[in-house]
């Protein structure tokens, strides 16, 4: 069996893993390895052929493959080793990584630090409890995106989309442009979690109706999907009898949320937050297991890849500092979700941090003319006003190190008022 030692091992060569690797190498780490399950680096960006990526980071609008290529080129320029077509089977709490590939068989890799960058998965049909038959023609929106954009075939001709997340909206346009008829986009909530821009440019542009407060209540078809029933829901999300609409379709795409992919993290003993479904981390993105870091969509689901890259640069630099034994023993400040706030990351901050800390969270509802407030024992640390905060867009408040001096307690709360 192959065995090797590295200073930093990064799991996943999507935008998070690539940024973490680039940053760690730029911090002087020579012994660095990135493991990727797919044949190529780039992650989900490879199939996101639409544009709109990189506005914050590069000040231009790139397509997904173009954004990924910039990081892949940078990694190549820095001589970063990326082992593709290799699947990690397990990560142990003491940093032993077991992986397998067709070319090398089973490998054991011991790492001083590990960066988890495995991304997320789409919520599958089984998790939605939609009744009906188990026919073919039902795909997650991302699977359909892969079929169309990477493998070059169309999954169907007459399409209904359940869920109005951005991937669903993007696929409504893609399927239309590639020749399919998209009959409807159906959203159980009274609002879409997708960007306005996508609702306008992916639905309105092609006259695709968006049914808010509606859901799919039946799926019909023996071998292949033959149709779905859509009904309006009440404020408890229960279907209202008599409101049913029948759609004659051969394809149903599901765009019903993303879940961080933490199987490996759990095996390593990493504590998972119920609010984010990702690891509990401190402001350096270190998990509850010393020397194991997490960043990108495996930590919490992002809306913008620019934010993923930014977070992962920090995680890579922190992993490099860990390898150099720059460990801190300062007490931790706990970060709590207050009114209107869900899933704040990081959940802990070391009290002696000398860097600004971005607190990232999702508003639990739509708030207009509101403010995000961070406080500690009644003392207001920072206040950020906003015209609108919505669950569809991650909010961010930056804490400066001096704000954390002489706190009247050992926890801070983020809330919306």
């Amino acid at each position, binding site marked *: 069996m192959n065995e090797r030692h590295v200073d930093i091992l990064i799991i996943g060569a999507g935008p998070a893993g690539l940024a973490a690797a680039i940053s760690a190498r730029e911090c002087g780490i020579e012994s660095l390895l990135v493991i990727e399950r797919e044949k190529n680096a780039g992650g989900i960006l490879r199939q996101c052929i639409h544009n709109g990526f990189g506005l914050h980071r590069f000040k231009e609008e790139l*397509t997904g493959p173009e954004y990924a290529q910039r990081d892949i080129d940078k990694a190549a320029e820095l001589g970063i080793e990326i082992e593709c077509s290799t699947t990690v089977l397990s990560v142990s709490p003491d940093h032993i990584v077991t992986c397998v590939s067709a070319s090398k068989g089973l490998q054991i890799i011991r790492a001083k630090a590990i960066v988890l960058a495995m991304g997320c998965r789409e919520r599958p049909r089984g998790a939605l409890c939609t009744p009906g038959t188990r026919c073919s023609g039902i795909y997650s929106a991302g699977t359909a995106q892969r079929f169309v*954009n*990477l493998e070059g075939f169309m999954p169907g001709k007459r399409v209904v989309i359940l869920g109005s997340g951005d991937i669903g909206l993007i696929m409504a346009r893609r399927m239309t*442009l590639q020749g399919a008829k998209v009959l409807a986009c159906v959203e159980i909530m009274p609002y879409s979690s997708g960007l*306005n821009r996508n609702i306008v440019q992916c639905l309105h542009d092609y006259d695709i109706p968006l049914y808010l407060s509606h859901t799919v209540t039946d799926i019909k078809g023996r071998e292949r999907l033959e149709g779905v029933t859509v009904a309006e829901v009440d404020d408890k999300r229960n279907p209202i009898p008599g409101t049913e609409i029948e759609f004659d379709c051969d394809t149903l795409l599901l765009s019903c949320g993303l879940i961080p992919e933490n199987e490996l993290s759990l095996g390593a003993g990493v504590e998972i937050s119920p609010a984010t479904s990702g690891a509990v981390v401190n402001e350096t993105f270190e998990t509850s297991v010393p020397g194991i870091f997490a960043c990108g969509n495996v930590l919490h689901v992002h809306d913008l890849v620019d934010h993923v890259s930014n977070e992962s640069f920090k995680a890579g630099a922190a992993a490099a500092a860990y390898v150099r034994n720059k460990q801190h023993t300062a007490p931790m400040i706990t970060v709590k979700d207050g009114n209107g706030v869900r899933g704040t990351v990081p959940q802990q901050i070391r009290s002696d941090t000398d860097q600004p800390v971005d607190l990232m969270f999702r508003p639990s509802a739509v708030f207009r003319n509101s403010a995000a407030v961070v406080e500690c024992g009644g003392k207001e640390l920072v206040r950020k006003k906003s015209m609108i905060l919505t669950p569809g867009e991650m909010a961010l408040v930056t804490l400066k190190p001096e704000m954390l001096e002489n706190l009247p307690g050992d926890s801070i709360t983020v809330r919306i008022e």
Partner: protein
Amino acid sequence: MEQTITCINCPVGCRMTVSLSESGEFLSVTGNTCPRGAKYAQQECTLPERMITAVIPVSGCETPLSVKTASPVPKKLIHDIMKELSSVQVSAPVSIGQVILPDVLHTGVDIIATRSLA
């Protein structure tokens, strides 16, 4: 003549009402909360533009080639441009940024590759 549109500049998504003259000239806009909205409304009601991205098959290659318009093109040309693209023949190798179809439908805009294929 009036037209209602949703602003796409930020999550507020203002519903704006645009007044146009008989000949389709922009007269005024209401419902916007910022100047970016007014600018978008004017553009969107007079000459709406979109970036187009697509995939085209490559002979002898399993993976299709992803392409885009090098800059936004008039929205009304989207379907015609997709039709043009469906008849384009490409063979590998292709490098990222390479012009696949110059001056598509005389718009002055090139269709370029957004990935490399070996």
